[in-house]
Structures are given as C-alpha cells and as structure tokens.
C-alpha cells in the first residue's frame, strides 16, 4: 500500500518536474525483515519498511532525476550510520552530509522534499552573512536536530 496518497504523489510529480534540475541521490539504510522483532536491544526496526516505501515513492515522482539505493546494514558495512532507518540525500559524486534517522513523516517529509530540491539546484538558500560565517568553519561540525513529525 502506498504511503502517500495519489493526490500527494501527483503534487510531488508536478513539483519535481518544475524544481528538480540536477540529479539527486537517495540512500536508505535499513534492516529488512526486522519490523516485527521486539528486542530489549532495540534491534527491531518498525519503520524500515515504511521508510523504504516512502523513499521509493520519492524516487518514482521523478525517476529521471532521482536515484535510490537501499542498503541492508546487516550485510554491508555502513560507517556513519548509527541506526535505521536512515535516509541520506545528496548529489551524486558528492559527499552525503544530510541524513534523517527515523521515518521522516509529517513536517520532516517536507524538509526531505525541500532538501532534494536544494541539492538538485546546489543552492542552500542562505544569506551572504551566513555563508561568510560558514566559510570560517575549518573543522568537522555535526548539527543534530531532534524533531517530531508534528
């Protein structure tokens, strides 16, 4: 069953047709088949299947521009991915520096869509002042944002 309604998928197709210029890579890290596991260690991944369907629907909205790779973390070493599902949005050939851990629903879905568009255009949409400040960053910096779907 689709995660997004047909109406939303149609809006997404129209929006991506207008706003995606360059290619966009989605990489989804999952642990397939673990959705029903309930373990004290937290090994189960109740949202991995939904995350995969959502990522596929994002790709299907503009398959000529959006590529999707689904990585099984139980079979492939995944440095930098601490839990699943994790979705990365990046420009092919670049460095994946944006990730969502957990199912990006509600407001976070909108941030993923916007990220895809900005990655596609290589446009962060920041002020000159902000870009000047960021130009002074010369060491690795992690910005972790805790959010909820609503």
């Amino acid at each position, binding site marked *: 069953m689709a995660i997004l309604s047909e109406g939303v998928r149609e809006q997404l197709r129209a929006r991506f047709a207008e706003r995606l210029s360059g290619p966009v890579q989605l990489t989804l890290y999952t642990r397939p088949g673990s959705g029903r596991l309930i373990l004290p260690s*937290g090994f189960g991944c109740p*949202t991995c299947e939904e995350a995969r369907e959502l990522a596929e629907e994002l790709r299907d909205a503009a398959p000529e521009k959006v590529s999707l790779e689904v990585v099984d973390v139980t079979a492939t070493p995944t440095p930098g991915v601490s*839990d699943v599902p994790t979705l990365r949005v990046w420009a092919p050939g670049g*460095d994946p*520096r*944006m*990730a*969502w*851990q*957990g*199912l*990006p*629903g509600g407001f*976070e879905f909108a*941030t993923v869509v*916007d*990220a895809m*568009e*900005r*990655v596609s255009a*290589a*446009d*962060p*949409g*920041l*002020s000159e*002042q*902000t*870009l*000047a*400040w*960021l*130009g*002074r*960053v*010369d*060491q*690795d*910096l*992690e*910005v*972790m*944002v*805790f*959010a*909820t*779907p609503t």
Partner: protein
Amino acid sequence: MSLANRMALASEHVRALTVEANEFPELSRQFGVSGVPRTVINRSGAFVGALPEAQFVETALTLAGVDLDQAPDGA
C-alpha cells in the same frame, strides 16, 4: 529544508542529522530532549527552538567554538 541541512549543503565541514525523537527515545534521553526542535552541536552544546537563520547559525557556530569575530582573511 531545515537550517541544519542548509548549513551542510553550504559547507563541506558540516554534517546534519535529523533524528525522529519519538522513534529513538534512548537517544533523545541521552541528549536531554524535552522539547523539539532541539539542536545538538558536536554531541555537546545544545539549544531549543526554531530560530531565525542568523541566530541559528551564529548560535551553532559559537557552540562549536568557531570564531565569528575573526576577519575573513585572517588578518
């Protein structure tokens, strides 16, 4: 797109990770999440709330120890 992601898109040194707080309660507890959005810099300093662009970036970079008063050319 969140400001954290815009920062990551603009700077090769910045990585942005958005965590669904309800889905990872242990991680949320580890970083003292009682309200969202909570932004944690280098797994250390943090601030709560949706801030305007300049304030968000200035706060994040200050917590990271970036000298924002330094002249751009280092002079």
